[in-house]
């Protein structure tokens, strides 16, 4: 065991990774199942004399992040599903103003108040823009506490690089679960990238004014801005795709799953192997951009797919869009906070394969 391996909850590991990544400001509002993250930030950001504010609401929190991010400071917010819904306008603004920030959704079951158990029912919201207008932002889905920490850490870099919000989409199980984690090194705040477009510190360089805004009432100009942003999206689609493949070559049936449900599929695969059945896993890590092309390749190789989700079927649309009818795509989902078991997932795979 590495000496610096710590046992942490996903929520706490995300918090610590954010701090180490140079997060200067956290703004959040309590909601289960991510409360440990807010509490962690309260304790450790304040201890480091960084900014922690328990905002009066999620709406306010995202707009505080908007303000802090507009000055170029690394900043973040976290919440869970209903709270993330409230942030949609703010997220659309952040995308419209090209502001880097990190947003963590430790998702719970919906719709409405629903329950506090883990869910992947916010996939559409996260990847299709639950807010108004044409926009996307990076969405990264960890499957473990270690990956939650790593992706959060990286999310700050990605946000800065691409000038956009990066969302960590973790379900409640990832947030609540404890695992061993080796944390990334602490960033020196002074080493972080300077942002020439940010508000403040004009006196240092006497540069022209910076305006952080998303308004443009001239349609042709607004269209040009949007197209420029979409050109950036195209770059991201080619450079920031992340996914993991396990045993896809040997497998006849490939699970497509992310986060917790990918872990369940791994369990089902182990059990399958014991029973002499080869199954594979395709695990998107970046949900946006979604690795459509690689799935299309696999489809061309004659694989069939089973999308396993803790939802009524959301990511499966991306799988279908990738596969374009070239291979069978099936769906197995649980919802309402139910986490599928390895046994039922294996049974479904067997049923489809007729084995």
């Amino acid at each position, binding site marked *: 065991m590495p000496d610096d391996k710590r046992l942490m909850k996903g929520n706490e590991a995300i918090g610590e990774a954010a701090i180490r990544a140079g997060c200067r400001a956290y703004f959040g509002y309590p909601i289960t199942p991510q409360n440990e993250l807010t509490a962690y930030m309260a304790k450790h950001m304040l201890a480091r004399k960084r900014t922690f504010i328990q*905002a009066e609401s999620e*709406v306010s929190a995202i707009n505080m992040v*908007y*303000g802090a991010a507009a000055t170029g400071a690394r900043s973040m917010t976290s919440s869970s599903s209903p709270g993330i819904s409230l942030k949609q306008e703010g997220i659309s*603004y952040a995308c419209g103003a090209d502001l880097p920030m990190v947003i963590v959704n430790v998702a719970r079951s919906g719709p409405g108040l629903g329950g506090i158990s883990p869910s992947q029912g916010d996939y559409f919201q996260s990847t299709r823009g639950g807010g108004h207008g044409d926009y996307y932002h990076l969405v990264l889905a960890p499957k473990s506490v270690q990956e939650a920490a790593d992706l959060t850490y990286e999310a700050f870099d990605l946000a800065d690089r691409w000038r956009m919000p990066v969302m960590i989409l973790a379900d409640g199980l990832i947030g609540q679960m404890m695992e061993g984690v080796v944390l990334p090194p602490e960033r020196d705040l002074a080493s972080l990238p300077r942002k020439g477009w940010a508000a403040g510190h004009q006196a240092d360089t006497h540069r022209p004014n910076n305006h952080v805004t998303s308004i443009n009432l001239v349609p042709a100009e607004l269209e040009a801005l949007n197209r420029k942003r979409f050109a950036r999206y195209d770059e991201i689609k080619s450079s920031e795709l992340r996914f993991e493949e396990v045993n896809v070559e040997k497998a006849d049936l490939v699970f497509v799953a992310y986060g917790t449900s990918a872990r369940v599929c791994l369990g089902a695969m182990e059990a399958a192997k014991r029973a002499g059945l080869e199954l594979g896993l395709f695990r998107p890590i970046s949900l946006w951009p979604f690795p459509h092309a690689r799935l299309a390749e696999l489809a061309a190789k004659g694989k069939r797919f089973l999308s396993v989700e803790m939802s009524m079927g959301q990511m499966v649309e991306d799988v279908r869009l990738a596969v374009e009818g070239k291979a069978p795509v099936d769906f197995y989902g649980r919802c309402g906070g139910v986490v599928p078991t390895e046994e039922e997932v294996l049974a479904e795979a067997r049923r489809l394969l007729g084995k």
Partner: protein
Amino acid sequence: MELAYGHPKSLKPVQSKYCPGCGHGVIHRLIAEVIDELALQERSVITNPVGCSIWADLYFDFDSVQPAHGRTPAASTGVKRMLPDHLVICYQGDGDLAAIGTAEIIHAANRGEKFTTIFVNNAIYGMTGGQMAPTTLVGQKATTAPEGRDPAEAGMGYPIRVCELLATLGGTKYLARGAVNNAANVRKTKQYIKKAFEAQMRGEGFTMVEVLSPCPTNWQMQPVEAEEWLEKNMIPFYPLGEIKNELGGAETKEAAK
């Protein structure tokens, strides 16, 4: 020939999109004058709200951040916490501050956020074309109060006195109400703004200057008529003066009126 009154440096020499006789212009100039006097031009950031003053970033000659409608104090909180040595001006209309952004202003004020809100109270929604604001007077007409604001039967509520509301909060240190209906009040308003900015730079806590301001277009009046209406109707309901002054140093208190 000596220049007595001229264009402030912190305001760009451009034609504004505001309607003739709109109070926003005067208020902009006052802010710019005070910033010039305090030599803060390159250390100022304005968060300009959704509302007619969305244009503020075209006119002020310093940095700006444009947040979502009503969330101006939340954004200002983020800006000021990250730039504690900057002057942060949270510019807000009455729809922005007293309707959709009620929670944001109350909690920023209560936290004693160290920025200054300039609250332009024109008793109506300007940008969207004349809907009722929380500050619309009883009986005053608006597109969403076609027979006039009616707190009784229609349950449209009463005009909210924002300074008085915020005065009950621990974090508020300086709350003043001015008006731009005549030269004397404009000058007094400028003094309020100056005190507030100075207090902000000393880090005393939340400061706000409310400014009663005409919106001739949506009041459907000529500009001069609008000034008169403001005098006759708004000032009696919204008393001018320093509503709360808990700034350090007795010298900063306004002489009793």
